[in-house]
């Protein structure tokens, strides 16, 4: 009972916020509705027992992707009125895409109900009672440790490459010298003077 209520609650909010994402006039509001949709999708994932995907949705999509969208929306001067201007012109092709996608969903569901594809051999499924975070972690950090570390090196190369190809030391700039700033004492910067009356100030 409680599962059914939770499912319909999450599902309804996902649909509602998804609809509001594409209809909201203010792009910042659209991104905020998108974040709400992600959170509720994560709730749905928890309901079916895929807690790793739920956390991935929250961390990656809400934490990184949606925030990136927000930055893009706020920093770029996108004229949304102009973007919407061609709606009638592209309505036909948009409709064609929608029909194609709907047909794919129907064919997919039909094929699924007709029975799964016979693959030659399938990797053994994980044992029961093992949470999928534990299962993934034990695979990544024991069996596939070597590949995992290799992937880490690939990312390191990507970082080195980006810096090597773009970083440039420009002459004539005056960057902040933190060490010098920290080393500086009040005595170096201020001077206590006692000008005599009528003498004026010596700078």
């Amino acid at each position, binding site marked *: 009972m409680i599962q059914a209520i939770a499912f319909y609650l999450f599902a309804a909010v996902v649909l509602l916020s998804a609809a509001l994402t594409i209809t909201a006039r203010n792009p910042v509001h659209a991104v905020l509705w998108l974040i709400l949709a992600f959170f509720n999708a994560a709730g749905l994932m928890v309901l079916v027992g895929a807690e790793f995907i739920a956390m991935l949705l929250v961390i990656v999509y809400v934490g990184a992707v949606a925030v990136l969208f927000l930055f893009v929306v706020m920093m770029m001067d996108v004229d949304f009125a102009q973007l919407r201007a061609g709606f009638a012109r592209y309505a036909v092709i948009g409709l064609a895409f929608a029909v194609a996608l709907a047909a794919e969903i129907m064919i997919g569901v039909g094929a699924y109900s007709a029975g799964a594809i016979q693959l030659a051999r399938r990797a053994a499924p994980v044992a029961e009672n093992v949470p999928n975070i534990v299962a993934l972690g034990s695979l990544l950090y024991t069996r596939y440790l*070597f*590949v995992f570390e290799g992937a880490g090196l690939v990312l390191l190369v990507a970082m080195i*490459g980006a810096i090597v190809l773009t970083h440039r030391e420009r002459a004539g700039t005056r960057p902040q010298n933190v060490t010098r700033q920290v080393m500086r004492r009040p005595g170096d910067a201020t001077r206590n003077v006692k000008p005599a009356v009528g003498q004026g100030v010596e700078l």
Partner: protein
Amino acid sequence: MNASLLMTLPELVLAAGAILLMLVSAWGGQTSTRGVSIAAVAVLVGAGVALAGPAGAGGEAWDGLYRADSFAAFAKILIFAASAVAIILAPGFFERTAGDNLRPEYPVLILLSAAGMSMMVSANDLLVLYVGLELQSLAAYVLASFMRRDTRSAEAGLKYFVLGALASGILLYGISLVYGFSGSTLFPQIADAYAGPRSLGLTFGLVFVFAGLAFKMGAVPFHMWTPDVYEGAPTPVTALFASAQKVAAIVIAVRVAVAAMGPVTEEWYPIVIFASLASIFLGAVGAIGQTNIKRLLAYSSINNVGFALVGLAAGTQQGVASVLVYLAVYVVMTLGSFLVVLQMRDADGQQVESIASLSGMSRTRPGLAFALMMFMFSLAGIPPLFGFYPKLAIFNAAVDAGLFPLAVAAVVGSVVGAYYYLRVVKTMFFDEPGEVFRPVENPVEGGLIAVAAVLVSPLGYLAIPLLTVWTTTAAKALF
């Protein structure tokens, strides 16, 4: 776990060395370039020494993902040696090239690329193969565009990146099909799946995997990137691409073909035979019109990949051994040619690359001209020189495997290819002297040219007994 770590010692040494040297260069900046380069060569030597232990022939590590056998060890020695040469050549080249300086990241990226190639040749699993391939490719893209102020270098890097990403996609698609229909990414289990009753999906996977690997080794019809990238990239990097990368790509293709897809030899035969013949002829014909020596060597590398694939097409233990012999000699000849190309510089000390500028070099710089003549004759496979022997071994293996027509076609292709090698020799010996090159300033580069020239000279035949024993053991490890 500890045994696995010991077996992957070369990769560990390279990765740890690269990270350490990255830190040194981050703090040391431009001034640390020399020290980092020397240390990087030392790391490569260390990784080579590590092969003497369990890493040389210890068997399987990491639950079968990685295979440390003498087949991989042979390829690793070639890869490490070629990478070390690419580091040694760099300071001289960048000094003579206006605009860009050598930065300490160069040796670090070469180390990481060597680690990737080393992973690749030891891969016993499609995941390790892919990660190793990406590691070496990504480092290679950056190295190709290392000269930021040179538009040709940037073009080379961009072209290589876009086409390389496409090839990775094709390979990955093949890997996903193979995994989906065989249920495993481990080579022995894939071989089991191929041996049993199999679906069409496995055949599709095989075709895509071979297409991806053919791109990485620059075999026709996936060779288009080679001349442009080789011409634009800094010459020491081109030397690395033409030697170490080719070795890694061909060796892993041999391993995939034999260890994972051995039971369906008849399915990959046509692919390998087509790629090898097309590479031999297109490499030979395409090189004829070239005026740039680096482009010429690029077509020469395509041509040579074709010959190496003839050995793979044989599909026998003898064929695999002949591929290894071929690669070993090819690396020496190619590195020697690039060493000579690096000595081509005009009176101002700037690098020149046109073949016409070689004219009359036999009179102005007889020693250098003689060395280049040896490399060119050797690449053409003309008998007294050592370059003849690996071609002979390859054709022998092909004939013994019953591929007589392929061997004949390859010999014809080799004769066509000899034309453009001879044209370079003719330019050097019979044309009127043009501009005079500056003498070899760097004793290390001069010494390396001399060593390579001695190795490809008829004296090289003395190494045949050693080479035969070594490659036969290596090939045996695969079957």
